[in-house]
């Protein structure tokens, strides 16, 4: 493991250095206690202490609206392309690093999604450690996403007046080299180790049930009344899935230009919470009830991906609960389900 040191007063130099090669996006204050990832040109625009942004950084890898194909009707021409630029996502918390890894698994699954993979090639990720909880909605310790598990080029940990930077890729190394950042001393490393030790005391399993037991608990709870309880509050707005760093369901749509000769196929985010999501043209709806759709969402985080990829597709970021207008809380659902399955 290679570690470097960046003095906090040199943060702006670091951002400016990245800007020489690429566009930089980072968490910024949006007002009302909200944060967003957006383009920055200096360090003072960045919120270094922030709760998870409204939308996760998945928007840079799988945009809300993405042109997949351009077509021309007269000559039957279809062209698939992406508009791509080199971009650095700075200040990504470990929950969102985990989210990007989940998307990466899905889109690498055959048949691969070329759009995602090409976008990913041009994304330079700089992680940022949370030394304590963002707020009460988070459940990152449950899924072990409170610690870095790869998925970045560089990873920043605040150790007082400096950041200790873990280098994970050659591209990251090249950037650090170009700035001639000092190597971390052994006392810096022991500071980092102390932070990690302290984190063990702060970050504790938030629901009191081992994550490994969740797939089994869910299987037992398939017909639980709890889903109806949740459904009685749910208004099917789809906010929970839109803000989720691992939700990737989408819709495809043809758009014809005003010349009526050319157009494009667009991929947009979709939500399994919408009433028509599983409806077929003949009229049959295979997830008609809100309770079925809420259950589906939770199964897609803690059961299905475990079967398929041996990984939870919840990163504990807490966005779904934070954003829910009806006050549906994922942690509460999991606690209730595990209590019920004991009987």
């Amino acid at each position, binding site marked *: 493991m290679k570690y470097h040191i960046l003095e906090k007063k040199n943060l702006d130099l670091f951002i400016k250095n990245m800007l020489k090669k690429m566009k930089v996006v980072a968490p910024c204050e949006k007002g009302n206690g909200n944060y967003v990832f957006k383009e920055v040109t200096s360090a003072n625009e960045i919120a270094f202490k922030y709760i998870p942004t409204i939308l996760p950084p998945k928007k840079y890898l799988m945009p809300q609206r993405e042109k997949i194909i351009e*077509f021309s009707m007269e000559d039957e021409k279809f062209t698939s*392309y992406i508009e791509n630029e080199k971009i650095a996502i700075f200040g990504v918390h470990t929950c969102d690093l985990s989210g990007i890894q989940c998307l990466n698994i899905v889109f690498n699954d055959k*048949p691969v999604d070329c759009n995602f993979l090409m976008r990913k090639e041009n994304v330079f990720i700089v992680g940022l450690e949370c030394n304590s909880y963002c707020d009460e909605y988070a459940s990152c310790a449950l899924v072990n996403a409170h610690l870095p598990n790869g998925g970045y080029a560089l990873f920043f940990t605040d150790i007082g007046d400096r950041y200790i930077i873990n280098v994970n890729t050659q591209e990251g190394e090249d950037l650090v080299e170009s700035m001639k950042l000092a190597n971390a001393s052994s006392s810096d490393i022991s500071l980092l180790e102390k932070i990690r030790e302290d984190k063990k005391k702060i970050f504790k399993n938030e629901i009191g049930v081992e994550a490994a037991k969740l797939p089994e608990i869910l299987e037992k709870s398939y017909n639980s009344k709890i889903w109806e309880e949740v459904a009685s509050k749910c208004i099917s707005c789809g906010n929970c899935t839109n803000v989720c760093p691992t939700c990737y369901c989408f819709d495809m749509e043809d758009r014809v230009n005003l010349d009526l000769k050319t157009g494009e196929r667009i991929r947009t985010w979709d939500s399994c919470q919408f009433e028509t999501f599983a409806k077929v*043209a003949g009229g049959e709806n295979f997830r008609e009830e809100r309770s079925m759709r809420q259950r589906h969402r939770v199964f897609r985080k803690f059961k299905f991906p475990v079967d398929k990829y041996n990984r939870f597709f919840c990163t504990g970021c807490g966005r779904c609960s934070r954003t829910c207008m009806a006050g549906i809380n994922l942690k509460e659902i999991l606690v209730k389900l595990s209590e019920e399955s004991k009987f």
Partner: protein
Amino acid sequence: MKTLSKKIEITESKWLYRKGTIINTKMMTKTEKWFDIKLDDGELGHEPGQFVQVEIVGVGEAPISICSSPTKKGSFELTVRAAGKVTNQMHKLENGDRINIRGPFGRPFPVRQMFGNDILFVAGGLGIAPLRSLINYVMDNRRDFGKVDILLGCKSPKDMLFYDEIEKWSKRMDINFACTVDKSDPDWKGNVGLITTLIPGVNLNPERTYAVVVGPPIMYKFVIAELLKKNIPERHIVLSLERHMKCGMGKCGHCQIDHPKNYYCCKDGPTFTYDEVKDAKKL
């Protein structure tokens, strides 16, 4: 200085189409139209039970079951009910019109496992379309299978699809064929009643029979109950489920079955054995 946004072509994109020409069409009923399609790049390369995505440029895509057997060379066939945006537009297409296809997609019927067994086909309504890809495959390889029974049900005689072909099946000596309609009309001389009424009369050896059932969700419920009464093992009951497969690549999420296990209809299905999906509330 920032690098400017670059437009890069993705030649290996899975979203690109195979182009083809419609070489024959026929209105089968008021709402179902049959298409014979020849691809520019050769054979479709499908197996019985698979589906394709049909793209009508500017309108969108719809997943459609392939209703012809791979033993038929040179072109493939689709039977399309005008139900949504794309299929209604598709009904306007005629001979010589161009069409765009992605696929084939999905897990086919377990044809090789069925070799050497008796086959009982049960088709309800439009279910005959995907089932016909297998029925014709079995007919063309008749020697590889044991006894073959075909049970067919539809709403009324005028809703019957593949009428000419079905008449031929009914005359063949190497298959047993029975047909029923929910509601008769004056010219109808056959059975009247639900398809479930035909099952008790079938003489079958449950140990060596595969029942292949395709129809609407409500039909599955009652037909499967009858088949289980006949002691056909759950893993020998094969279904083809309908869901809205939007991408065909196991990603978009629309076709995922409402089931405790992780089943995408487009990749893990559309064909399933009953033991795989019996926990789903609606098949």
